[in-house]
Structures are given as structure tokens and as C-alpha cells.
């Protein structure tokens, strides 16, 4: 027993500290040389030099120098990332060798990070897209995702809200889940479940997107939405290199320019009020003001024409500056390398009193203890602070033009202080923005520590301990004068989430003989997540003054003040094998099993297998003569992924409660609030993918194309259960949704001389279809004014469902001769009687489109000529529809500001009937228009997302300021943004009711998403 342990210890120590024994081999000679780049004749550091068929290998140093003990003759293979591998036969020892390596155009040998490892691009069997950080950090965005817009086929990144710092929605190959979320899993340096919000683009080395299930399946139960792997920079061997990026600029919002001025507004509102009055049978010849025979609600106050004419949209928006400074140092030697960086970013919002600031730091250290042992540490704290607008854009822009921005005494007038109760009761927009202090602060720290041991040639074990700690504080105060109800209010929310993970992997990689590449991975992962939040709410109106805005100045409201805690745990075991024969026939298979605390005792564990294969046809002998073709690979894959985002204790029947007063005593009550389902299990996505990778003309043209079919079944959503249980629905696993489509990425190097021109183009189309709803054929969610969102077997999920307008009821005769909706009047729409039964009722509703784009396009062109470089990115989206319900506010519904394009041509009266296509629109008639295609608009767009121009100063000049690199650049974001003429909103991707998040989702519903900003940037990149 004791001896055994001793031997074990000796074994471990010898394994850790064993040195290379090959040096003592007999009959060898020293071969030395230099490896240099064929392009700039500079030395190449770290080139792997390997005597084929032996274990003899080394790497070049900073001078590009290497030396090896060799038995001659032998063949040396020189391989280096980004360069064409070269082989050279050495027969005798002479002068030091001089080896020139050519840069590759498309990096077939570049490493692509996949889950728990990396593979050569040429060996990939799955659909993985990689974006390297080449200038992405020069695009001024508060969030890194935005810089990726239009760059990845099948990855739709849409900015539905445009407040500073708002997170865009990322959808990889469509949405398949109704209730459990469709966000991809973000893995940052191996930490699954991280967020983009604490990543600074300047620290990013590359971003890989695992699009198909065969590559994502290694992340099992969280990968159904795809996986985005972010790899951050680490130090490179050599002297310290300092790089500084400094840039700044300003943002300008793209606004509407068709607002009515106050005189036009007076005329329009008079027509509006007369029309309303006529509908209730009023006599419109009664003067609009001052005659008590006309009810107050139908009058128009002459106070409108008081000499004030405010365009509220323009009043609340401003040109907003921003600035960004980041600094990074990296370096290292044979045993240690480091990367440290810091960033400060300050971005003002184009809406007054909004901003977003981040302060981040990052340190990464890798230590090579000896030939066998590597240790590393990474720490990345990030602090973000922001001031948020309390209301949607609509509440600022819709305010009527006759209200002054501010009174001479500094107070803020309201619409009702001019006109009385007929107009909107809302507070003055400037008062809302000035008098509401709504702040969000986040401190997020990611850290990890790893140790890796090389057990034998090709065999490594690695253990990682990681943590992600997030602290959030949200403070909100609204002064009484900023509130529509004239009462102060306030709240404070503190929350923290701590996630710990331990991952252990064992990795084996070996080439047997010349033809058999074999790799295997095994691992275990344990993750535990704790969260706690505390909400404190003030009693409305209880603040003693506006000066002290913390809640100690108010009475605490027990209803709404609480602390919440939750936690979940995930245990996973996974494995993967890959085999390649002659690098022509490639196979990969993986399996993962996850156990999650979120699921019922009967369904705790899920299995997520995958398999993929590829055939590199170009490696076959019969293809050898086709010199045009550099590479041709066919891929096929299948995999299963899961979704566990259902809330921590959804399988349990739980008790909720509250308070009420009985006999003047405050009493707690509790009652069962959820039914529970011990059989609740995983939502599973099975995906098929067929792909082809083609390289032409010595890799100057590469094409990657994929077709996929993704089916998500066992959907987690609330199904009907018998009411006798006390509940009408219970979370269950039923239903199935399909996404299928294709993606093409085309990269070309059009010109490669002094004047270089590269183009990256991508196109993707996705079709979503509900296949099953667990026994029912359809489910309809209807909004208060009649628009419905449809889940129906055979249709895309959450399609708009409503009536089709065909015209306007112009004559009393039409009211009886044409099928109309019950209660219709002159000016109301004529609807399409779809089933032709002569009655307009809910059976005449039709599918009216969907919030999802039918196809997306992206194109990036990069040019360089000597010291100049220029690039621009174009993105287009086709076929998405938006339910632009905000339009009604700009049509006079609360007698607010109006837009010419929205009120033109509509029916006002028999004498002023418009063009016969635009029905009367007003608040009282909303249920006649909101339930139809009237507010559904085509949200297709084409945008020049970014133009970036740079100039690299010659070294002679940059040296004068002591730098090795000096580049000036200028860029414009959203330089051009084209939308359809029928689109009236600020942002075609903008909607306010969220995306798909449960059975009652209303994706595409917009009331007041913020305008898009055009951003002008000027900056400098410095290297030392």
C-alpha cells in the first residue's frame, strides 16, 4: 500500500520534471539555419521545425534561428501559422540554411477554436465561422457584438434598442425555442455562460461561431442557440510591445423630418376633433372652442396658437460625443508570456442625459514551468456605469408642439397646463429627462486559473478553475415634477451573481505513421451558479425633497421590497474523438451528458451526441491535375444540443404569497403558485448540416456553403392541463419547431499587388416553421387593440395574424352593401372578406408576415495601397415585418405631435375623403386599424454599417515620436441607412416588446424604439 503510493508519487514527479532524453542520441550532426518571411524578409519567431518521421523538433527564436541534432540525410518540415508549410531535404551540413516561408492567402492551416480545443481549418468537419480581430477594435461601438454585424453568415445580430450600451440580439440560424430563450452560449476563454457586456474588443484575438449542432454539441445542454467562442489575446514571445488606440468622435441620430409645425398641427387637430365629434353625431358647425354645446373632449383650444412651436424630437436629441482609450502591453520569453491591458470608454447618448461608460482591465499570464507543465492565470475586471432614459422614445417625440420646453422661472409646463384634460396627461419630456435619475452600474470580473501537464507526447491533461462574478446596482429616482402623476418615486435594486466552474480535460493527439491522424478528448465539468438580489421600493410620493435621492429620504413600501435568492448546478461529462486518414477522410464524433438541477428528478440527465465527416476531394489523386482548385471539401454532420433556460425551479410546485389587510391587520398569505412537473426535461435540438468548402486559384477565392435543418422538439412551454388540478397550464415538453436554410460565405482577394483589394461576402436565408404544438393546431396571443401573434402548425412562429385592409368605407351605402366589421362607420376600413361569407369576423384573419428576416446579406471590402487602407461593410436584411404600432401616437391619438407622412391621404370626412386607401386613424378607431395590416411595415433595410479609412505613417516619421507604428484613421458607422418608403419608424430592427420569450410573446411590436445613430470617429493607433 505504502510502496504503491510511493511509486505513484515518484511517477508523478518524474512525469513532471522529466527532461528531453533525445539529446543523447548517437551519430547525429548539428543542422542550423534561419527562417524568414518571403514577403518582408523579416525573421519569423516560433516556426516549428520538425524532422519528418522522427521526434526531433524545435522552434525558431527571435532571430528566426534554429538548430537541431540530426541523423542525415533527413527531411525538415517548417510550419508556421499563416504561412505555407515547406519541406526541405538536408543531406549534409554546410552553411546555415536560409528558408523563406510564403504567406498563405486563406489560412487552411490556421487554428480554429472549437469547444475544448482547436483544429486546423483544413481538418474541420463542422460549420464553424471564424472572425479575427483585424480592425474590429477600431469600430466605435459600446458593445463588441455590433462590430460583427454583417460579417457572419447565418448569425443575425440585430440592435433592437439603441440606448447607449444596449445589448443586441444574436440569433444563429433562427429561433427554435418558444419559452426557453434562443441566445447563443457565449464562451470566453473557456468560461461558458459569459456575456459580451464585459468584453472589450481590443482584447479579443478571435471570435468563432459554432453554428451547427455537431460542433456545438460538446457544450450539450446550453448549445441549442449555437455557441460563440471568444478567445482573448495573450502575450507573444519577444520584447514588450505597447500598443495604444485612442479615438473619439460624435454620434448623430437619424431623425424624422416630417413633423407638423404648430400651425399645421392646429389645422390637423381641428380636422381630427371635428371628425371625432361627427362620429358621435355632433354638429361640427358648432365652433371648436368656447361653445358649451360642444363637449370639452371635442374642442380645440386656441392656446395651441400661443406662439410656441417646439419640435420635441429635435429638442430631446443632441449630437453626442464619445471617446475611447485603450492600451495594451504584451511580451514574453521562452518560459513566460504576458498580456495586460486597460480601457476607458465614455459614450454619450444622442438622447439627452443618457450615457454609458466603461473602465476595464485585463491581465493574462502564461508560465511554462518546464517541458511538461504549463500554468496560467487570467483576471478581467470590468466596470460599466450608465444613465438610462426612463421612457421609450415615443414619450418624448409625441409631445404636442404648443408646449414650451421650459418656463422662464425654470419650471416645466405640461400640455394640460395649456389646454386642460383633452390632451395627454404626460409630464413635459424635458422634465422627465432632467428630473429622472436612472442609473445602472455593473462590476463584472472574470478570472481563471489553469494547469496543464504533458503526460506523454500528444497527451495532455488540463484543469481549469474559473469564476464569473457580477455585481449590479440599479438606482432610480423620479422627482414629482418629472412624473405624469406629480408624485416622486424611487427604487434601488442590488443583485449579484457568482458562477464557479471547474473543468478537467484530457487530450490526446497523435499521428500514426504518415496517414493516420488521431485525436481524443475526455472531460468533466462542474458549474455552480448563485444569485441574490434585493429590491427596495419607496412609497410613491414619500420623498421629502428632490435633493436627497436615496431611499433614506422616503418611506419604504413593503409591497415590492424583497430579497430573492436562487442557484443552479450543472454537472457534465464529455468526450470527442477525431480521426483523419491521409488528411482526406475526416471523422469527428462527440458526446456529452449533462445533469442539471433545473430539471425534475425523473429527467435530470440528458445526452447530446454528434457525429460529422468530411471528404477532402482535392486530396485525391484524380484531382491533382486540377490546379485551379486549391482545396475542395464536402462536409456532413448531425448533432443534438439542448436548452436548459427555464428558470431554476420550474419543475417544482411552489408556494407564492403576498400581504393583505384583514380586520385592519396586515396579514401574510401564501398559496400554491405553480403546479410543478417532475418529468420536466430538456428541450432538444437535432440538426443536420451539409457543407462544402472550396478554394480556388491558390486560395485567392474561398467559398464556404452550408445547408442545415434544425428541429427543436420537447419545447418547454406551458401546456393546457385539466383545470381540476387548480391550474390551467403546466410547463411541459411538447411541440416542435423547425429552422432550415442555407449560408454562403465568399472571400476573394481581387487584387494582390501594391494595390490590394479583398472582398468578404455572405448571404443567409432561414425558414422557420412550427411543426407541432403538442396536440393543438394553433395558439393565438391577441394584443389589447386586436393584433394577434400566431403559433400555427406549418407557419413561422409568432407570425402576425390579422385582417387585410382593401379600402375605406366612403358612403353610407357601402356600410350595408360591402361586408364590414360590426360597428363600422364612414372612414373605417373595408377588410378583405377572405372566406367570402359576407361577414367580417375573426375567420377572415390572415397571416401577415413575421418579425424574422427572410434573408440577410453582408459584404466587407478592404483596400490598401502602400500606406493607405480603406474598408467598408454593407449589411442588408430582407423580408422582416415590423408591427409599428407607435405610428398611432404620431397620428393625433392623444392630440400629440403629428407626422405628415402618417396622416396624409386619410379619410377626414365625406367632403375630404383622402385617397380612398387610407382609413381614418384615431385613438377611438384604433381597434379598426390596429388589428389589420395597416401598421405592419416592411422592415427590410440596406446599411453601410462602417467605413474606415487609415493612413500608416512611414517608419521614418513615426520614429521621430519614438513609436514603431503610427496610424491615423477615420470611420463612419451607419454612413448610409436605406429603408423602405412605407417604413415609418426610427430603426427597422427596433422593437420594444422583446423577442420570443414565452407563449405570449409579441416579437416585432414597436412603440418607441430609439433612433439609429450615425457615428463619426477619428483616431490614432500607436505601437512602441
Amino acid at each position: 500500500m505504502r510502496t504503491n503510493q510511493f511509486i505513484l508519487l515518484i511517477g508523478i514527479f518524474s512525469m513532471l520534471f522529466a527532461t528531453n532524453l533525445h539529446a543523447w542520441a548517437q551519430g547525429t550532426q548539428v543542422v542550423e539555419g534561419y527562417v524568414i518571411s518571403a514577403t518582408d524578409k523579416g525573421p519569423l519567431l516560433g516556426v516549428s521545425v520538425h524532422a519528418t518521421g522522427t521526434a526531433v523538433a524545435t522552434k525558431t527564436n527571435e532571430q528566426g534561428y534554429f538548430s537541431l541534432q540530426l541523423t542525415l540525410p533527413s527531411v525538415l518540415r517548417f510550419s508556421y501559422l499563416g504561412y505555407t508549410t515547406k519541406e526541405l531535404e538536408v543531406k549534409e551540413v554546410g552553411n546555415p540554411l536560409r528558408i523563406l516561408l510564403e504567406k498563405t492567402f486563406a489560412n487552411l492551416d490556421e487554428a480554429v477554436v472549437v469547444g475544448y480545443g482547436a483544429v486546423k481549418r483544413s481538418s474541420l468537419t463542422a460549420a464553424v465561422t471564424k472572425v479575427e480581430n483585424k480592425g474590429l477594435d477600431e469600430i466605435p461601438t459600446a458593445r463588441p457584438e455590433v462590430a460583427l454585424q454583417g460579417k457572419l453568415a447565418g448569425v443575425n445580430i440585430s440592435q433592437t434598442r439603441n440606448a447607449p450600451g444596449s445589448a443586441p440580439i444574436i440569433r444563429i440560424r433562427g429561433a427554435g425555442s418558444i419559452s426557453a430563450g434562443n441566445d447563443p452560449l457565449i464562451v470566453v476563454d473557456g468560461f461558458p455562460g459569459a456575456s459580451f457586456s464585459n468584453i472589450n474588443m481590443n482584447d479579443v484575438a478571435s471570435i468563432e461561431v459554432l453554428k451547427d449542432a455537431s460542433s456545438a454539441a460538446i457544450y450539450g445542454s446550453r448549445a441549442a442557440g449555437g455557441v460563440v467562442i471568444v478567445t482573448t489575446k495573450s502575450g507573444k514571445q519577444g520584447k514588450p510591445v505597447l500598443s495604444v488606440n485612442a479615438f473619439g468622435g460624435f454620434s448623430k441620430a437619424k431623425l424624422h423630418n416630417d413633423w407638423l409645425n404648430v400651425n399645421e398641427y392646429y389645422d390637423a387637430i381641428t380636422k381630427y376633433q371635428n371628425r371625432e365629434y361627427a362620429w358621435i353625431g355632433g354638429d361640427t358647425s358648432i365652433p371648436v372652442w368656447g361653445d358649451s354645446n360642444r363637449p370639452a373632449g371635442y374642442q380645440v383650444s386656441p392656446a395651441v396658437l400661443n406662439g410656441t412651436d417646439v419640435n420635441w424630437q429635435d429638442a430631446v436629441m443632441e449630437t453626442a460625443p464619445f471617446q475611447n482609450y485603450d492600451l495594451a502591453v504584451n511580451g514574453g520569453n521562452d518560459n513566460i508570456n504576458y498580456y495586460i491591458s486597460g480601457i476607458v470608454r465614455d459614450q454619450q447618448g444622442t438622447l439627452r442625459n443618457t450615457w454609458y461608460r466603461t473602465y476595464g482591465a485585463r491581465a493574462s499570464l502564461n508560465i511554462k514551468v518546464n517541458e511538461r507543465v504549463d500554468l496560467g492565470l487570467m483576471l478581467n475586471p470590468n466596470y460599466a456605469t450608465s444613465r438610462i432614459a426612463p421612457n421609450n422614445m415615443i414619450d418624448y417625440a409625441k409631445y404636442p408642439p404648443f408646449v414650451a420646453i421650459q418656463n422662464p422661472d425654470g419650471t416645466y409646463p405640461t400640455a394640460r397646463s395649456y389646454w386642460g384634460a383633452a390632451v395627454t396627461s404626460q409630464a413635459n419630456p424635458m422634465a422627465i429627462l432632467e428630473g429622472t435619475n436612472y442609473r445602472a452600474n455593473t462590476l463584472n470580473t472574470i478570472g481563471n486559473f489553469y494547469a496543464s501537464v504533458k503526460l506523454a507526447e500528444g497527451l495532455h491533461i488540463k484543469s481549469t478553475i474559473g469564476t464569473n462574478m457580477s455585481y449590479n446596482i440599479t438606482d432610480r429616482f423620479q422627482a414629482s415634477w418629472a412624473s405624469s402623476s406629480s408624485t416622486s418615486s424611487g427604487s434601488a435594486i442590488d443583485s449579484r451573481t457568482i458562477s464557479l466552474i471547474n473543468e478537467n480535460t484530457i487530450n490526446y493527439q497523435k499521428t500514426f505513421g504518415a496517414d493516420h491522424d488521431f485525436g481524443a478528448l475526455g472531460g468533466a465539468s462542474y458549474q455552480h451558479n448563485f444569485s441574490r438580489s434585493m429590491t427596495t421600493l419607496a412609497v410613491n410620493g414619500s420623498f421629502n425633497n428632490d435633493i436627497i435621492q436615496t431611499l433614506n429620504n422616503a418611506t419604504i413600501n413593503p409591497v415590492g421590497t424583497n430579497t430573492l435568492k436562487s442557484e443552479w448546478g450543472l454537472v457534465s461529462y464529455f468526450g470527442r474523438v477525431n480521426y483523419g486518414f491521409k488528411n482526406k477522410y475526416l471523422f469527428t464524433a462527440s458526446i456529452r451528458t449533462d445533469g442539471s438541477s433545473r430539471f425534475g428528478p425523473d429527467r435530470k440527465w440528458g445526452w447530446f451526441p454528434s457525429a460529422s465527416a468530411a471528404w477532402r476531394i482535392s486530396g485525391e489523386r484524380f484531382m491533382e491535375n486540377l490546379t485551379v482548385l486549391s482545396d475542395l471539401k464536402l462536409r456532413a454532420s448531425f448533432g443534438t444540443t439542448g436548452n436548459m433556460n427555464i428558470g431554476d425551479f420550474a419543475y417544482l410546485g411552489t408556494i407564492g404569497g403576498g400581504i393583505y389587510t384583514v380586520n385592519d391587520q396586515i396579514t401574510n398569505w401564501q398559496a400554491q403558485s405553480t403546479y410543478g412537473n417532475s418529468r420536466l426535461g430538456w428541450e432538444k435540438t437535432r440538426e443536420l448540416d451539409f457543407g462544402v468548402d472550396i478554394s480556388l486559384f491558390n486560395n485567392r477565392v474561398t467559398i464556404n456553403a452550408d445547408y442545415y435543418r434544425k428541429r427543436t422538439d420537447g419545447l418547454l412551454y406551458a401546456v393546457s392541463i385539466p383545470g381540476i388540478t387548480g391550474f390551467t397550464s403546466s410547463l411541459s415538453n411538447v411541440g416542435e419547431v423547425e429552422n432550415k436554410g442555407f449560408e454562403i460565405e465568399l472571400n476573394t482577394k481581387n487584387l494582390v499587388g501594391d494595390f490590394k483589394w479583398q472582398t468578404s461576402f455572405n448571404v443567409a436565408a432561414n425558414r422557420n416553421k412550427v411543426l407541432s404544438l403538442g396536440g393543438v393546431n394553433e395558439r393565438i396571443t391577441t394584443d389589447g387593440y386586436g393584433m394577434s401573434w400566431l403559433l400555427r402548425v406549418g407557419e413561422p412562429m409568432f407570425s402576425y395574424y390579422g385582417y387585410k385592409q382593401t379600402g375605406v368605407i366612403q358612403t353610407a351605402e357601402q356600410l350595408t352593401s360591402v361586408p364590414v366589421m360590426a360597428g363600422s362607420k364612414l372612414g373605417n376600413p373595408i377588410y378583405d372578406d377572405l372566406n367570402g361569407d359576407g361577414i367580417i369576423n375573426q375567420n377572415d384573419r390572415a397571416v401577415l408576415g413575421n418579425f424574422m428576416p427572410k434573408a440577410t446579406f453582408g459584404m466587407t471590402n478592404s483596400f490598401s495601397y502602400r500606406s493607405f487602407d480603406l474598408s467598408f461593410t454593407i449589411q442588408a436584411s430582407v423580408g422582416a415585418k415590423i408591427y409599428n404600432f407607435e405610428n398611432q401616437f404620431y397620428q393625433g391619438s392623444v392630440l400629440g405631435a403629428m407626422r405628415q407622412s402618417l396622416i396624409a391621404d386619410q379619410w377626414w370626412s365625406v367632403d375630404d375623403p383622402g385617397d380612398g386607401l387610407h382609413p381614418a386613424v384615431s385613438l377611438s378607431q384604433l381597434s379598426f386599424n390596429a388589428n389589420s395590416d395597416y401598421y405592419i411595415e416592411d422592415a427590410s433595410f440596406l446599411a453601410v454599417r462602417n467605413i474606415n479609412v487609415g493612413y500608416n505613417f512611414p517608419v521614418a516619421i513615426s520614429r521621430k515620436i519614438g513609436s514603431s507604428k503610427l496610424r491615423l484613421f477615420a470611420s463612419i458607422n451607419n454612413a448610409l441607412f436605406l429603408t423602405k418608403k412605407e417604413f415609418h419608424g426610427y430603426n427597422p430592427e427596433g422593437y420594444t416588446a422583446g423577442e420570443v420569450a414565452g407563449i405570449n410573446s409579441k416579437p416585432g411590436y414597436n412603440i418607441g424604439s430609439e433612433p439609429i445613430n450615425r457615428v463619426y470617429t477619428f483616431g490614432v493607433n500607436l505601437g512602441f
Partner: protein
Amino acid sequence: MNGKHLIGYLLLCTLTLASCSKSFLQEDPSTSVAVESAISSETDMLESVAGLYRSLDNYFIFGRNYPLFGDLLADNVYLSSTNSSRLLMQNNYTWTIANTEPRTFWSNTYYSILQANRIIGSNLDITENVAQLKGEAYALRALCYLYLINWFAKPYTVDPNAAGVPLVTVSTSITGPLVKPERNTVAEVYDKMISDLDSAFLLMPETTPAIHIASSNFIAKYAAKALQSRVFLYKADYENARDAALSVVQNGGYSLTDSPGDFAAYWASTASRTDKVETIFELNNSATANNGIEGLDFIYAAQGHGDMLVTDDTYAIYQETDSRRALIQDGTRNGMQAYFVNKYPNVTATDRDEVKMIRYAEVLLTLSEAYGRLGDEANARLYLNMVAQNRDHSIAPYTYSGNELLDAIVLERRKELAFEGLRFFDLTRLNLDFTRQNMGTKAYSYYTDVLRTDFRRIQPIPQEEINANPNMTQNAGY
């Protein structure tokens, strides 16, 4: 370096970590309690009973629709032509299986039954407090079944063997056996209600323990007995109805108000009663928890929606000297004369009107009717006059006999209990045809003659329930 040792070392690593995996997967919620461990103390039970009372006040059931339907579907109330678009189909007798109201009758009442089942099924030791609380849960479960059986099934007096509603008496889980039951018969449901009320009466101590002070907001021992007298009356079991009602009268300690002034003040107040005057049980609608614009008071009161108006016929049954006539307000609606219900006048206050569930006068009239049906006309007249003369001090005692006496008792019930949701049950248990007055242009629409053959005297089983439970059968006509 030996390969075996290496493997041993790796296994060691993996096993150490694997041993903690079990605890990773067994989390307990920190802020909500799993159902199994919910009632583990008297305080838990007290809060659960409070949750049961709160659930009853939902406006889809006892908070509005149950008491409102009892008059709207009967002959007391109609929907004004000027209305807030609520309950149009109920006024017109055109509701269907897809209608929200029967669906929510069903699901919300069973939700309350679930809460009662959890309390009844808890295994706390029986102390005086636990006995009181469990007794209340038994009584409230019976109350829920009484409304379910009378809205969703034929009256007992018509067919006791007709399909009733499923009896669910234990807390269920989705995998359990009770999820898809068949409908029990009407008689089985009545038996269960009677036994639940017996359990309630036996469990509850003679003196209400301090955990629930004697308040009209809580079910007390004799409130359970009073409710049982109603169950027996609906079952036409007049001997037991008489005994239960007499027990309340003799032992309950309840009384009527003394004067018309006190009677008016009683209806104007939003406070619960601790003096056992008039109210035996009512639902709390305090400032912290009420139904807002969906409350029973709001749909009746002229200052609220004022949608539901009193028919002229109903107004006419009250003498001018009857203090109950003051509970109907003569006003105008959209330019036309209209009678508003004024039993729940506090819609503009923060503390809103209680919903009356059982009042002493009902028990007296049940006692009177039971005596009358059993042939003891002297006692029948005694208790009839006790109510009638209290409400109208100017009238002479009634001297009716035979059918005239029975009709007078039923009419007195209508006068006394109007707008409290019980009229419809009197009409159905006695299997009477009835006429809902056509109020012409004042009404949204009308549906006058409700014959005893009309299938809409019973609500439809919700379509969702039929879809989700293949063992469920629909009521005839739907």
C-alpha cells in the same frame, strides 16, 4: 513512469470531483417553498388559509362573477345599453363553450379547492388552532363545490344522478392519478359537501381561538352550519335544513339590525363585523387587496361602471316603506331613468365593499322555508315575519298558508338577498320557468323567457377542460 499509476492518478482526480456532483444537482429554492414542505407549522397554515380567502376574492369567482351571475342570469338585473363591454353574452344568454367566464369559474374555483386540499391534507398535529384552520378549509371547500355544482350541473332536485363535477379532495401532481377524473354525480358532490361541513363544524372549537378572531371575514363554527343549511335546502332535504338553520338561530348568537337607520348604516359600511350583526361570512376587500374596477361594487355602483341595472319588476316588489328599497338608487344613465344597485356604494373609497357570502336573514328564511315545506306553517310564518317585519316596520305580520305561504317565503328571499347572487339558485332548485324583463332601449339586449328546458341554465364545461381531459363530458346543448 508507469501507465497504470497514471491511470490511477487520473481516476483519483475524477472520482474526487464526481463525488460532489450529487450535491450540485440537488438545489432547494431559497425564496419559494416546494409544495411538499409548504405547511410545516401553524403559521404556515395560517398564511395558507389567508391565501385561500384571498383566492376566493378573485373577481372571476366570488369577488364578482359568482354573485353577479346569480342576479344577471336570473330576473333581477339587466345590462345597460351604455356599458363597459363586460359580460355582454351573459346578458344576452349567448355564451358558448369558448367563453371566458365559465372557464374561469372552473379553473379559479378548483384553484381555491387546491389550496383548501393542501391545508386539509397537511399532517400537523391537531391543536385547537390547527382544528380551527382546518375547519375553515373544509367549510370553504364545501362553499366552492356548492357553486361549482349549481353552475355546472343539473339541480339536485331535478336529477341527483346527473353528472356533477369531479370531486378533487387531495392535492394533485401532474403525474398523479387524479388528473383526468370523470364527473362525479350530483348526489356524490352533495354528500361530500355535507360531510365537509360536518367535519368543519366538529373540528372548530366552540369559542373561536385567538388565531382567527370572531370576524365576519373568517368562517366560524356556526357559519359552517349556516352554509350547511343552504346545502340541505338546495338538496330539498328540509328536515336537515331546518335542523342546521335552527342550530344557527339557537346557538350562533347572530342578530338582525334593530332599526332602518342601523340597516342603512350596515350596508353603507365597508368594515367587517365582529358583533355578529347581519353578516355571518363575507369576503374582505381592503385597501391593500381588492378587485379595483373589476369588483362587484364597481360593476353595480352608479359611480363605478354602473353597467348592471335593476329591472323595473324587481324594483316593484318592494313597498315604499321597505328599508331595502333604499338599497336601490333611482338615477339616470345616458339620459334615461335607471335603477342602480346601492348595496355596494363605496367604489370611490380605498377600502372597498365586502362581498356578502352568508347573512343571518338567509338562515332565518331557510328555516322558515324548511318549516313551510315540512308543513309547520306557524313556525314558517314566525321566521318569515321575523325578517319581513324587521325590514318594514309598518307592515302587519303575514298570515299566508299553503302555497301562498311558500310563495311569500321565496319572494321574501328575493327581496332580502337580491344582488347577492342567490336568486338564480332559488329559481333552478325549484325548477321554475322565469322571465327576464325586457327593458327596451335601456338594455343592451334582451333574452326574456328562460324555460326549465333551456340548456343555458347550466354553464358549459370549458372546452379547454374537455380537450385536456378525455374523461370529461360536456353538458347537453353545448
